[in-house]
């Protein structure tokens, strides 16, 4: 096995990993950074984020308002020290991106423009048309090309963390083009591998989002936090799950049921606002969890429109005008026409809620530290408890930047701390990881297929742990996923080539997804309350007495995870009522 020695290994080259890499290269050009990713950086799913990134810059806005929106939006499951740090750093990071060339949309005077977003009381979302994530990703990627100390390992699939003496000292990765296995010996490691939306059948997430880093950390003994909180975005295209940004509603788009009625007013988000004059934190500018839940109720009442791809409601933007749509929402128009055959300029677009974001992830704190020395995590794979029980749109892109930098600062400090790599022990562990990969590769017989197990997992999660959940449906999901994890032993690779063997990578991804799916279902079963995106039909109220707590799921081998709880950090905002009824006033 080949060995690569580096100072900081970053796994994942999306927005968070790239931001971290730049932070290290700028502050400590003497440190070697290995940026390892299973895809080329520009393929990372940050590119699909559309709406924008939140940061306070306008004179009518304040850090306190951003704090309150985020904490309330997260149904008080956010760690408030984290939120406080985040809102203070947000605008700095977005300005930094501007200095690196990000093509933010502008006001006529040349200053950066902001747009309204769901759950935000003031317009504070920086945007680059409706391709904000794409531009952020490419700006960061291209900026990394300046720094010789960043060495990229594109298309290396990371399988294991190397943990010796309770400290993370590297990773094992497969070079995808050759099948060769490498050990990266590092003084510290940052995991930035993104979310796991692919555990659900209908998702905005790209194929790469299989939660590899989270699962890897989980198996290495680090708890996953709040995994039961999965966000449904209210406006996805029905056939494919392609996202239509919240910016559609920020710019004035409205939701209608089959009768043309703006049904959100019936679910505590009224009164109805005038067409083309969106009011912040009201109606269509309510938070994503509430909007997706309202859809579910409309569906129960029979007010949705049946389509070949499931029940839908309409997103109506016809009153916005062609010029405005082309300037602010060009991608939305392109996607609607291409994939649904509907031009939003003239027609209402059928949409339905779609799995979008995992609030849960690797347990981290305000320093982006995991409980394991030398290991940091950032972005959707992590749960630093910024987003609580429901993430507000446009907070996650900023989160990548703020905590990407934070993780980098701590990782480079740790790397410079004089810890010696225990090379023989690390190598021994890497050999074991290699052995496991080879066994999977060579194994024959079994009769299970990767695509078959994957489909059963997805269907089971959607059925049991969707927008609304009950004890019974969750128990079924838990049982199914537990079975699927056992049945995984019965898969066999048909592809025996060492070169770009996607059969192997899909098998590894499936294992990761099954582990994470189990934490989602088990966490949801154990949380006997409704909060944010986690809604139980059998426990309809929020229960601050018993569940103002984070769920921590610990890996227990073949068994179901051990669930523990951790108090939420509350500094200044006591749990209250989430008010989206004309709350803009």
């Amino acid at each position, binding site marked *: 096995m080949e060995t690569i020695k580096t100072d900081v290994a970053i796994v994942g080259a999306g927005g968070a990993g790239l931001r971290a890499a730049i932070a290290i290269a700028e502050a400590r050009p003497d440190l070697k950074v290995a940026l390892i990713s299973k895809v080329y950086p520009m393929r990372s799913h940050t590119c699909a984020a559309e709406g924008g990134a939140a940061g306070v810059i306008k004179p009518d806005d304040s850090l306190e308002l951003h704090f309150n929106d985020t904490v309330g939006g997260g149904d008080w499951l956010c760690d408030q020290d984290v939120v406080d740090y985040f809102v203070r750093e947000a605008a700095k990071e977005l300005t930094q991106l501007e200095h690196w060339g990000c093509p933010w949309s502008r006001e006529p005077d040349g200053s950066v423009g902001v747009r309204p977003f769901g759950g935000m009381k003031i317009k504070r979302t920086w945007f680059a048309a409706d391709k904000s994530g794409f531009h952020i990703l490419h700006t960061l990627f291209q900026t990394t090309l300046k720094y010789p100390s960043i060495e990229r390992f594109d298309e290396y699939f990371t399988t294991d963390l190397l943990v010796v003496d309770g400290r993370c000292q590297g990773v094992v990765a497969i070079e995808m*083009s*050759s*099948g*060769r296995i490498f050990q990266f010996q590092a003084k510290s490691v940052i995991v930035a591998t993104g979310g796991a939306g692919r555990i659900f059948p209908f998702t905005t997430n790209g194929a790469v989002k299989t939660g590899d880093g989270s699962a890897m950390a989980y198996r290495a003994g680090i708890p996953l936090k709040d995994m039961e909180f999965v966000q449904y975005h209210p406006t996805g295209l029905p056939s494919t799950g392609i996202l239509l940004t919240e910016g559609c509603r920020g710019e004035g788009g409205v939701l209608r049921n089959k009768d043309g009625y703006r049904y959100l007013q019936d679910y505590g988000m009224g009164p109805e606002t005038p067409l083309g004059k969106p009011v912040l934190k009201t109606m269509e500018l309510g938070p994503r969890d509430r909007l997706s839940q309202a859809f579910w109720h409309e569906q129960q009442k029979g007010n949705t429109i049946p389509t070949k791809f499931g029940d839908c409601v309409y997103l109506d933007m016809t009153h916005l005008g062609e010029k405005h749509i082309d300037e602010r929402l060009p991608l939305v128009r392109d996607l609607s026409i291409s994939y649904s055959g509907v031009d939003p300029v003239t027609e209402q677009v059928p949409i339905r809620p779609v799995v979008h974001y995992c609030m849960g992830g690797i347990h981290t704190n305000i320093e982006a530290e995991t409980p394991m020395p030398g290991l940091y995590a950032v972005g959707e794979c992590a749960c630093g408890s910024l987003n609580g029980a429901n993430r507000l749109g446009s907070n996650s892109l900023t989160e990548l930047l703020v905590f990407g930098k934070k993780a980098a600062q701590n990782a480079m400090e740790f790397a410079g701390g004089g810890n010696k790599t225990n090379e023989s022990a690390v190598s021994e562990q890497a050999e074991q990881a290699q052995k496991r990969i080879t066994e999977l590769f060579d194994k024959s017989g079994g009769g299970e297929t990767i695509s078959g197990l994957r489909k059963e997992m997805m269907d089971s999660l959607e059925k049991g742990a969707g927008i609304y959940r009950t004890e019974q449906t969750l128990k079924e999901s838990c049982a199914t996923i537990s079975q699927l994890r056992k049945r995984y032993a019965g898969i066999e690779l048909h592809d025996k*080539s*060492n*070169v770009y063997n996607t059969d192997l990578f899909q098998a590894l991804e499936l294992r990761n997804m099954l582990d994470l799916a189990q934490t989602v279902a088990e966490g949801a079963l154990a949380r006997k309350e409704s909060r944010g995106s986690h809604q139980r039909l059998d426990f309809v109220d929020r229960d601050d007495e018993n569940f103002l707590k984070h769920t921590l799921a610990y890996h227990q081998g073949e068994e179901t995870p051990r669930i523990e709880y951790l108090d939420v950090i509350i500094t200044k905002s006591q749990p209250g009522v989430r008010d989206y009824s004309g709350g803009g006033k």
Partner: protein
Amino acid sequence: MSRRPYVRRISTTTWYLKKKRDLVHMIQELTSLFVGIYGILLLWGVKALSEGPEAYGAFLEALTGPLSLAFHWVAFPLVLYHAISWFNVTHKAMPIQRGEEFLPGKYIVGAHYVVWIGFSLVVLFVAGVF
């Protein structure tokens, strides 16, 4: 260990026959030869002019020969095609931004035609056609 990227070789002499787009491009490229020949012709004429009326007369005489006429029957349409195909893409090379928006390409292409026709009229006028 096992990588062996496969390089698909292409023929350096016949590659453009496979795809219409490439063929059209090559024709466009080849028409530039005739533009070049016209350039040489023009230089020849200038040289003849500098050598006095007799030389220039011989030059004009040569132009009316059957070989020369045949050449022009072939060359002129090709040069015309070359010019037009270039005019039609000039807006890509020379975009004009007015305020936020770019001037639609048709104006830039159109301006080229206007200038071309204008020049041609002047030349014809000087040549005594009108």
